[in-house]
């Protein structure tokens, strides 16, 4: 069991409203990622769910029971902190056992749970060491282990990979994904890294300034962003936003939906062609597998293009770009998505 429901949740610190009317349902066994720029309230939202912080108004339901005023200890959730927050004066084993001792669990069951978690995370040789003697990746595993032994209703992970180096982050990401598949537990994962969000999530919650912008599976988010913010936030490099006049040459006979004032084109969807947009190249970034070309249009608008493989071009040269009209996104004056007719 691990259903979590948030109902018109609000949180203010004095005059500052950090969370504004959050409504969200998280299904059992789902891995939901909260993503957004810094200061968007994603960590605050996680803290409300964990019980470490109380919302100003609104309700939190865990398995359909109102948990709004239940203490953090009694919500049955486990949290993995960004800093890992391992107890520095205890050995790895004591770290794992601490929560179980507090729950007054019989020793036999405790040993069983610890050895199961230790085996799953392959941290057996570390049991007698203290956190100070572990590497970042090992600490991360222990922190996850401390959550697993508690057998929680849901896991809350607060930017768990942000303190690891890039290489380790990729492998831990894969492990977390495998772990989720194996445990089948509900997980809520907070990150500002959209790659983590895209690769791990069953559903992504995009937050901005304390409001949910869109909740959707990763691919839906990529293909049908509900507004300009989500469109710009998801996908790397960022989507190009151009006025209708700028893209006139490629619109062809595509019907511009009523109310649309702006189009969005992902850099990957632009390709060199005979006719189309005329761009002056300002910078070429060859990444090997793909080439990112920065340029300006005649109107002065900047544009990014990624082309697979290697492209021979250099600063000052002209390129003509075309786009499949199916990949055009339209936004109205309020920056909301407008579906093509």
């Amino acid at each position, binding site marked *: 069991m691990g259903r979590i429901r948030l109902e018109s949740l609000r949180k203010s610190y004095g005059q500052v409203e950090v969370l504004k009317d959050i409504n969200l349902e998280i299904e059992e066994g789902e891995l939901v990622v909260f993503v957004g720029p810094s200061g968007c309230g994603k960590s605050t939202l996680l803290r409300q769910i964990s019980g470490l912080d109380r919302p100003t108004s609104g309700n939190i339901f865990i398995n359909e029971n109102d948990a709004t005023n239940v203490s953090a200890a009694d919500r049955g*959730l486990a949290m993995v902190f960004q800093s890992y927050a*391992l*107890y520095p004066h205890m050995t790895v084993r004591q770290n794992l056992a601490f*929560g179980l001792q507090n729950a007054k669990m019989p020793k036999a069951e405790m040993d069983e749970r610890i050895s199961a978690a230790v085996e799953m995370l392959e941290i057996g040789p570390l049991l007698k060491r203290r956190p100070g003697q572990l590497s970042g990746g090992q600490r991360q595993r222990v922190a996850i282990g401390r959550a697993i032994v508690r057998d929680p209703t849901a896991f809350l992970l607060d930017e768990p990979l942000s303190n690891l180096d890039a290489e380790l982050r990729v492998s831990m990401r894969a492990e977390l994904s495998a772990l989720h598949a194996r445990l089948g537990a509900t997980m809520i994962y907070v990150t500002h890294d959209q790659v983590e969000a895209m690769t791990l999530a069953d559903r992504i919650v995009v937050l901005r300034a304390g409001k949910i912008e869109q909740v959707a599976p990763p691919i839906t988010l990529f293909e049908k962003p509900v507004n300009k913010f989500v469109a710009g936030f998801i996908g790397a490099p960022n989507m190009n936003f151009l006025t209708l006049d700028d893209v006139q040459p490629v619109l062809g006979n595509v019907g511009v939906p009523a109310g649309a004032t702006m189009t969005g084109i992902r850099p990957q969807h632009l390709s060199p062609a005979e006719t189309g947009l005329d761009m002056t190249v300002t910078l070429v970034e060859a990444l090997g597998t793909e080439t990112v070309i920065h340029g300006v249009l005649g109107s002065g608008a900047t544009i990014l293009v990624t082309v697979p493989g290697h492209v021979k071009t250099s600063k000052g040269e002209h390129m003509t770009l075309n786009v499949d009209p199916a990949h055009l996104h339209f936004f109205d004056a309020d920056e909301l998505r407008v579906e093509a007719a």
Partner: protein
Amino acid sequence: MKAITFLTRRRGGDTWHWTDVVTFAWLGFGLIIMFGPAIWLVMSSFKSPAQLAEFPPTILPYVSETVEVPVKGTMKELPLYTVTTEGEAPRELAEVRRVGIIANMVDPADPETVIKVNINDRTPVRRVGLALENYAKPLRDFNFGLYLWNSVFVTGVATIITLITNSMAAFALSKYDFRGRNAVLLLIVATLMIPISVNIVPLYSVVSSLGLLNSLWGVILPTVATPTGVFLLRQYMLTIPDELLEAARMDKASEWQIYWRIILPLTAPALAVLAIFSVVWRWNDFLWPLIVLSRKELFTLQVGLNTFAGELNVQWHFILAMTVATMIPVVLVFVFLQRYITAGIAGTGLK
């Protein structure tokens, strides 16, 4: 050898740079100012009462040379003197008795012949030696063991209570957010500005009405809440990340368990510093125990020492010797734990 190379190291290498001269002079001056009185105390504690009254005083303790001489058929210990009379070589004579300014002296080799000598013509024969009876007599007659136990009890119990109460206060002041937290802290720290002499009369009436006069608890309880300790521990606890406490809360730990199993072990270095301070403070306390304790069997060492100072005469030799004895535990604390003290003071940014 290493120590000597270290101590004689100079900035100028083989020659003397002017900063070397200033440094050595300044450090030497400091050494004398700080260490001189301690050396003098220890040396003086081995001097006899007569020598303590001498002027000019000497640094080293001396004892008079004596000799066994048969006087009227019985052997007697007599003090030896060097006698220098005009026209004769200096000789060593033993003094039998003194009458006014004339001393009756005998030659130890010829004890039958009494020689009369003017006291200005003789000087005592002395060698460097220790008057150990300064220590032996009070240790035997003075209730040293009892006073030592009282001191140990007061110091030990007061230190334990100090550590527990101060760390609880520091925990609340550093890790809980409540209205008026800073005001409370300010109030606690502000009490540092109130000297004990201002407090003593009200404190006495409180302790008296609680019936704690003439009880060691009356000495212990008023001293356990120290603003210095609360402040020192709070500053240290601020460096413990809040996420650890939150992790413990998620781990179903009660607030007491958080304090006892997370905060206290992590505050150990600061607790060690406070323990050292507290031991030194309580061991050296004099005024407050003197006020509270009036029954002799309850005296702490410091108050006990005071009994050597009578209304009419002060037994300096005993006071000095027992002062040295009572200093030993505190000196040992400093010798063995001084690196914690310096680390602690540096780490907490105190004083």
